[in-house]
């Protein structure tokens, strides 16, 4: 059983699927956010019939080698750019045969933001019956930690040694622009909100997209046990907004941050990827403010973007 203290209260209960989706003995690094996500998905999915499509990413490695598998459900490892199209084929055949199977793509940020973007966009445009989950560790983790378009400005990677210059792509904005039935960001530190979203997304039909900030101690140069705390800091500081978008138009903000400067400072200082790259609390503040102004505009919530805390 993978019920580690790091799961932060996410203990195994009788509501959970009888078998973990990601079994013990997998090769994920300690403190991997994707492991936590799979544990939460286990509870949310309960005994629903599932199929998994995994493109090249850490999940493809952690599945282990033939003939064993760390995944307890039927799974296909697709080519890097093809998760959503392979899932499209799976979901279409399930539909033709009147099956209730939920087809889930589990893809990293490289396979989502970068190489798989066209595929993702096409499946979303056709509103295929797929639940697409991007576990975003903001880096090409599998290949040793190169920048992706999900890497935030100021993060050092093996291909941006002095810190990435460009800002992170707005993936939920892109997905919302496809007017898909459901797009949401998920915080691993907010379990109730996460479980609710996972369950909603599992039961909804059409294209559903979930974005998960997934701590990566190896790439972020952070303490494995600090992963969920880092996500909490990212949420509290306003750096990672937790919200959902229905049909591309109804924006709902789920967690109101404190916009805490201390949280932002802690978030940066607990990860060595931000060390000596010039990124500071002050340098991040304008972009946080800008994005939250945009979110408030979209959600229609008249709450000041900045509070005195």
């Amino acid at each position: 059983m993978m019920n580690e203290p790091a799961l932060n209260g996410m203990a195994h209960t009788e509501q959970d699927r009888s078998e973990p989706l990601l079994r013990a003995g997998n090769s994920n690094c300690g403190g991997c956010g994707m492991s936590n996500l799979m544990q939460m998905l286990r509870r949310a999915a309960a005994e629903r019939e599932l199929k998994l499509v995994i493109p090249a990413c850490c999940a493809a490695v952690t599945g282990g080698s033939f003939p064993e598998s760390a995944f307890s459900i039927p799974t296909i490892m697709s080519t890097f750019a093809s998760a959503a199209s392979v899932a499209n084929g799976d979901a279409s055949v399930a539909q033709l045969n009147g099956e209730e199977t939920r087809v889930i793509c589990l893809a990293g940020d490289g396979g989502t933001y970068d190489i798989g973007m066209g595929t993702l966009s096409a499946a979303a445009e056709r509103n295929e019956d797929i639940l697409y989950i991007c576990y975003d560790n903001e880096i090409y983790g599998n290949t040793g930690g190169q920048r992706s378009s999900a890497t935030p400005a100021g993060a050092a990677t093996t291909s941006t040694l002095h810190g990435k210059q460009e800002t992170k792509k707005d993936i939920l904005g892109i997905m919302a622009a496809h007017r898909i039935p459901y797009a949401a960001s998920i915080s691993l530190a907010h379990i109730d909100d996460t479980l609710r979203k996972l369950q909603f997304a599992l039961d909804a039909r059409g294209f559903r997209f979930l974005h998960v900030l997934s701590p990566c101690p190896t790439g972020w140069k952070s303490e494995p046990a600090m992963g969920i705390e880092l996500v909490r800091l990212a949420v509290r500081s306003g750096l990672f907004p937790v919200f959902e978008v229905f049909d591309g138009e109804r924006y709902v903000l789920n967690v109101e941050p404190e916009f805490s400067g201390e949280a932002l400072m802690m978030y940066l200082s607990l990860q060595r990827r931000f060390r000596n790259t010039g990124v500071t609390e002050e340098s991040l503040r304008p972009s946080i403010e800008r994005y939250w102004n945009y979110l408030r505009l979209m959600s229609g919530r008249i709450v000041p973007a900045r509070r005195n805390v």
Partner: protein
Amino acid sequence: MAVELISANHAAALAATLAGRANRTARGFCSGVYPITPSTECMEYLCGQEIEKGKVVRADSEHNAMGICIGASASGARSFTTTCSNGLAYMIENCVAAAGYRLPIVMSIANRTLGPPWNIWADHGDSLLMRDLGWLQFYSADIQQVFDTVLCAFRLAEDPRVMMPALCCMDGFILSHTMAQVEVPSQEQVDRCLPPTDIPHRLDKSAHTLGQMETPHQSVVHRAQHHQAMLNARQVYAEVQDSFEEIFGRRPADPLVSYRTEDAETLIVSMGTLGVTAERVVDLLREQGQSVGSVRVRMFRPMLDEELRKIFAGKKRIAVLDRDISIGFGGVLWGEVRGFADPSAIVQNYMVGVAGGDVRPEHMINLLAELEQANESGAPRIVEVA
């Protein structure tokens, strides 16, 4: 059996439609398609069909068209797509995957020159990119063959002793855009010819992972199994021909089409529609008293080495005509078959009709006249035709 006047693109799509409907009692039919000249009419035709328990997904790229076919086939459905040229080149990563998963997807190719420079005319260089990937490969010479080959390809690809994807090639425009009368069987006949698709390793209920990591030893074992299954296709194809003949009352073309070879001293070896021209040239030269024959390699993968050795035995001169070029080497077909000739034979490679050149009988007659004068095999020659 009805007779319809259709193009080869439509013949391939019609065969796929009938095959798709035939799987309605099993897990149905699902296909991802994307247009490219000169394969477009094949996907358009498919998009216009009503297929019971069938879905044709209008994909956003060839890469994803094959991705959709992979997902569909991995879920147990019958699957088909079509492309060519740079579309095939763009798709190829997923073609590698389809073969690696051992999924019996059938694909129609209207062979077209790879670009740039951009050229839409017939050349086998596109499908020959797939030579080593573990796909069955057929090259048709007329429109009836295109139709028959697609049906046979489903049967062959889905046979448990073979279980791998299949490529059905036709020369772009020369076949894809010309029309001829095609005998089209009834749905009931196709149902009998194609049993329900059964992919034993499909994703079903069990916790089974398809396409996961392997150690070198495991991969080599899987390669060996794939290789053996491909070799099995030679025998299985003969069985498919028998069964086809029993149900449809006519026999689909042989994997190697020999024409007046038995008493011939000189052979022309080719693929696709070049072979039809070669057969006319054989007739013309025979009238002039020359003992010439033609061999058309219809099944290119698996390669029928034993059979070709038998046909080549005792032949003095062999002209291998390639509508392709492996730059820095010569013709791909020549490279494959030259070793099957007798050591004393003169085997000359002519790359003719490359990039869509219109190869007419007089071109072949001139080449054979030159070959008759040769004392030894020369370097591969690129022959320019208008």
